[in-house]
C-alpha cells in the first residue's frame, strides 16, 4: 500500500507541476521552459497512446511515429490548401490516423511477436517515404505551417500559454479516456488477450477484432499528438515519422513504466528533460543517455513507476 502511495504522490506532484508551469514561466521570465514543456506534453500524449496497445494490449508497435506524421501532415496540407479552421483540421487528422491504423492494424495483426514489431515498422517506413515523395508539400524538406489552426476565438493557438494548456488538456483527456477504456469490459478483454490469447479465444472472444479496435483507438490518439506537434513547431517533415522517432516513443513508455496510466508521461518528462539538461552540459549528451538506457533495462525493471513502487516498499 505504501509503495502505491509513493508513486501516487510523485505522479500528483508531476501533474501539479505541469499545470502550474506557465505560472513559473511568467514569474521567472523563462519562456524557453514553456516551449520545452509544450513539446514534452505533446510527446507524452503520443507515448500514452502507444502505451495503450503496448502496455495493456501487448502489441509492440514500432511504427507509432507514423501517426505523428499523418496527424501533422493533415494539419499542414489543409493549411497549405487554405483550410485554416481547426474544426476541420483536427477531425481530419484524427480520421486519417484512424483510417491508417485500421488498414495497418488489420494487416499487422495477422502476425505476432517480433514479426509484429517489424511489420508495423515497415508500414511506418512506407508512410515516411510517401511523405518524402510529396513534392507539392515540401518532400524531403518538409512543409512549413504558416498559420496555426484557427479555433475561431475559442482558443488561440498562437498564444503560448493557451496553446500549452490546450496540450495539457488533451493529454489529461486522453489519459482519462485510456483509464476508461482499460477498465471497461472491452479493456479487460484486451488485457486478457495479452496474457493468454488462446484461452480468450477459446472462451469465445474474437481476439483480432478486439485488438484491432484497440489499435485504432491508439493510432487516433497519436494522430491528435501529431496535429498538436505540427502546430507547435509550425512545421512538419518526413523526419517526424522516421523509425528512430518510434524508438524514442517506445523508450519513453518503457522508461516510465509500461502498462501504468501515468508511466509514459513520467517517461516522456524524464527522457526529454534529461536530454535537455545533458545537452546543456555536453554536446555529446547521447554518450551518457545511451548507457543510461542500458542501465535502466538492466537494473530498473518496471521503469520509473516500478522503481517508485520499490522505494515505497523500502
Amino acid at each position, binding site marked *: 500500500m505504501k509503495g502505491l502511495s509513493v508513486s501516487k504522490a510523485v505522479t500528483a506532484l508531476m501533474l501539479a507541476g505541469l499545470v502550474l508551469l506557465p505560472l513559473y514561466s511568467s514569474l521567472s521570465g523563462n519562456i524557453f521552459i514553456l516551449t520545452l514543456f509544450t513539446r514534452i506534453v505533446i510527446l507524452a500524449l503520443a507515448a500514452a497512446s502507444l502505451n495503450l496497445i503496448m502496455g495493456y494490449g501487448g502489441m509492440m508497435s514500432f511504427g507509432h511515429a507514423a501517426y505523428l506524421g499523418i496527424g501533422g501532415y493533415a494539419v499542414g496540407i489543409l493549411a497549405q490548401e487554405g483550410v485554416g479552421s481547426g474544426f476541420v483540421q483536427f477531425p481530419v487528422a484524427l480520421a486519417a490516423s484512424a483510417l491508417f491504423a485500421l488498414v495497418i492494424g488489420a494487416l499487422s495483426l495477422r502476425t505476432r511477436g517480433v*514479426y509484429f514489431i517489424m511489420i508495423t515498422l*515497415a508500414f511506418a517506413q512506407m508512410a515516411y517515404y510517401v511523405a518524402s515523395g510529396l513534392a507539392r508539400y515540401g518532400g524531403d524538406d518538409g512543409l512549413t505551417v504558416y498559420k496555426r489552426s484557427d479555433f475561431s476565438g475559442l482558443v488561440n493557438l498562437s498564444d503560448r500559454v493557451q496553446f500549452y494548456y490546450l496540450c495539457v488538456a488533451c493529454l489529461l483527456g486522453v489519459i482519462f479516456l485510456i483509464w476508461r477504456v482499460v477498465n471497461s469490459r472491452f479493456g479487460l478483454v484486451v488485457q486478457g488477450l495479452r496474457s493468454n490469447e488462446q484461452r480468450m479465444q477459446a472462451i469465445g472472444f474474437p481476439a483480432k477484432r478486439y485488438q484491432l479496435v484497440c489499435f485504432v483507438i491508439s493510432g487516433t490518439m497519436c494522430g491528435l499528438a501529431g496535429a498538436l506537434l505540427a502546430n507547435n513547431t509550425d512545421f512538419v517533415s518526413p523526419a517526424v515519422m522516421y523509425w528512430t522517432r518510434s524508438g524514442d516513443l517506445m523508450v519513453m513508455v518503457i522508461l516510465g513504466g509500461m502498462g501504468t496510466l501515468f508511466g509514459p508521461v513520467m517517461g516522456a518528462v524524464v527522457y526529454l528533460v534529461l536530454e535537455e539538461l545533458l545537452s546543456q552540459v555536453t554536446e555529446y549528451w547521447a*554518450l551518457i543517455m545511451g548507457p543510461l538506457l542500458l542501465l535502466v533495462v538492466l537494473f530498473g525493471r518496471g521503469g520509473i513507476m516500478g522503481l517508485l513502487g520499490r522505494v515505497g516498499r523500502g
Partner: protein
Amino acid sequence: MLLVVEQFLNGLQFGLLLFLLAAGLTLVFGIMDLVNLAHGSLYMMGAYFAATFVAWTGSFVLGALMALGATLLLGIVLEVTALRHLYGRDHLDHVLATFGLILFFNEAVRLIWGPAGLALPLPAWLTVPVQLLPGIYYPAYRLAIIVVALLVALLLYLGVMRTRIGMLIRAGASNREMIGALGINIKLLYTLVFGLGAALAGLAGLMQAPILTVQIGMGENILILAFVIIVIGGIGSIRGAFLAAIFVGMIDTLGRAFLPNLLRQVLSSTAASTAAPALSSMLIYLLMAIVLVVRPEGLFPANRR
C-alpha cells in the same frame, strides 16, 4: 542490354552485402533470441575502423583486415559487458537497451572522428573496370565484393552445417539447457557467435565504405533493411536470409534503376519523376508487408523449436 547487366550485378552486389549484415543478425536472433538494434552500429564501426586503419597503414587490404579484427573484438567486448545480461529477457528490453547503444555509438563516433563524414579511397588496382563479356565491363571493386561475400556465405554455410562448432551452435539454438547439461560452455559459445555476427557486420561496413561516404548513422537505414530481410526469409534461417537478401538487393536496385522509366509509360513525366523515388524506396517494405500477410512466419521459417 549493357545497363540491364550492370544493374543486375549491382543488385547482386547489394544483396550479398545485405546478406552479410542479415546473417549476423539472424544468427544472434535465432540462436541467442536477442533483438540487436545496434547491429547497424557495428556495421558503421567497421567502416570507420577501415577508413582509419587504411589511412594509417597505407594498405587497403591490411587496413581492412585490421578493421575486421577490431569489429570482432568490439562485438566480444559488447557481449561480455552488456548484452549477455539480456538473454532470456523480454524482446522489448532488448529493443530499449540496444537503442541506447545506437545513441552511444553514434555519439562516440562524433566525438572521436568528428561530425563530418570520412572517405575511404580505393587503391588503384581495384578501380580498373574488368571485362566480363565482350563489351561488358564492370568495376573491379564491386566484383571483389561479390566474390568475397559469396566466399563468406559458403564458409558460413559449411561452418554451421558441417563443423562441430556449427553443430553445437545449431543444438544451442534448439535447446540451450540441454547443450549446457552436456558440458558445453554455452556462455563462450554465445560470445563467439556474437563476435562472429559483429565481424560479419563489420565486413559489410568496411566493404561498403569506399562506395558510400563513411558517416554517422549510416548503419540505421541498412539495419532496417537487414531486419526486413530476416523477417522475409524467416528468423534464424541462414538460407532464408541469403535468398531474401539477394531478392531484396535486386528489387531495390532494379526498382531504382527502371521504375522511373516504367512509370513514365503510364504517367506524365513530372508525375513519374516525383513518384518514382518514393515508390522505389517503398518497394521493399511493400514486399515485406505482402510476405508477412501471406506467410506470417516468413518464406523459409527455421525449424520449429
